[in-house]
């Protein structure tokens, strides 16, 4: 079956064939959800933001600029919604109850869980502008240019904030990593 590009799907949706929007949702739902939950550290909040992202994108589809990747545009909506949601929930909630990839060794699991919690804790202690970039970089999906588009900041700022964040984490987590 011929897989339609993002742009083709968008054009179909804009011409009134709403059913094609489902394909765009299916294509990016995991990526959007993973960014949202990483920001908010809570499934319910992440779910709300992920859904709201696609709803807002649907109603704003006419304003989408096809010079940029649709995914980048979606993430910009996601990040804005995450910031709003984070303000409401005051602080990022530690996700101690969230699963990590478990190994067969229980002791190793505990140690891994501890180190993961510590890493998240330190990420959350970073200034918000550095944290944003680090979390967007996790999947390695986005280029520096795309991160600068998502966050609406210059490319050089992306690189310098990213390095500052990494440097801070390397210092604070040197006994773990």
């Amino acid at each position: 079956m011929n897989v339609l590009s993002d742009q083709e799907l968008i054009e179909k949706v804009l011409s009134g064939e709403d059913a094609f929007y489902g394909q765009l949702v299916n294509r990016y739902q995991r990526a959007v959800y993973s960014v949202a939950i990483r920001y908010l550290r809570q499934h319910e909040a992440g779910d709300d933001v992920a859904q709201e992202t696609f709803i807002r994108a649907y109603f704003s589809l006419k304003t989408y600029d096809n010079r940029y990747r649709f995914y980048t545009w979606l993430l910009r909506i996601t990040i804005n919604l995450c910031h709003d949601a984070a303000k409401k929930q005051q602080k990022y909630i530690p996700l101690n109850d969230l699963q990590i990839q478990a190994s067969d060794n229980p002791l190793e699991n505990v140690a891994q869980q501890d180190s993961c919690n510590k890493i998240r804790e330190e990420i959350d202690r970073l200034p918000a502008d550095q944290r944003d970039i680090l979390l967007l970089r996790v999947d390695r999906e986005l280029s520096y240019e795309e991160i600068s588009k998502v966050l609406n900041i210059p490319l050089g700022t992306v690189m310098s904030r990213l390095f500052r964040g990494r440097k801070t984490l390397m210092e604070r987590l040197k006994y773990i990593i």
Partner: protein
Amino acid sequence: MIENKHELKVNQLQAYVDGRLDPLQKNKADVHLKNCQKCRDLAKKLGDLDKAISRAEYYPAPEGYFNTFSSRVACSIAQRKMAKAKPQFWGILRWGGVPIAAAATLTILIVISVNIYISDKGSILVEREGIKTRMASKIETTAEGFGSSRDLIEPLALMPHEINEVKAIVIYLPGDEGPIHPPEIATAIEIDIPNGG
């Protein structure tokens, strides 16, 4: 050639670790890293940190979560569309409601406060074959004020039988001067009778 000034090329080293250098720059970085232990260590630390962050920031969604995700989104979109359609109606009430209510109140006040009554020369408008005819007819009224509905309807019953359709009853109200004869007509209230009389 990337120079051995470490503080100046952290961005390049970072881009190298992130795989964001073009082939030419990457070759130059490879050459530099071969000869620079400090940069090699830093590159390794950056790589290890990224792996650790990726591991810590991996959150699997609940089982089956994505099976219903797009249908939930579609449902929410449909609901929003319906909700967006409603305000057009409620919007009229919201913004139009105030003047409508004000006008209604004013009308009632005028009707109540002004000394209005149906002139004993009240008329009944009969429309027949598209021609409106005002027919003089005595309408019994209470002392002052509107006659009862009975007062309005009864004269109609006395009309000649060839009148088979009454489209409206028009009540002419006197002007400010009060009930003079003939009354100075200021206002006419037309009561439509949708299915004919």
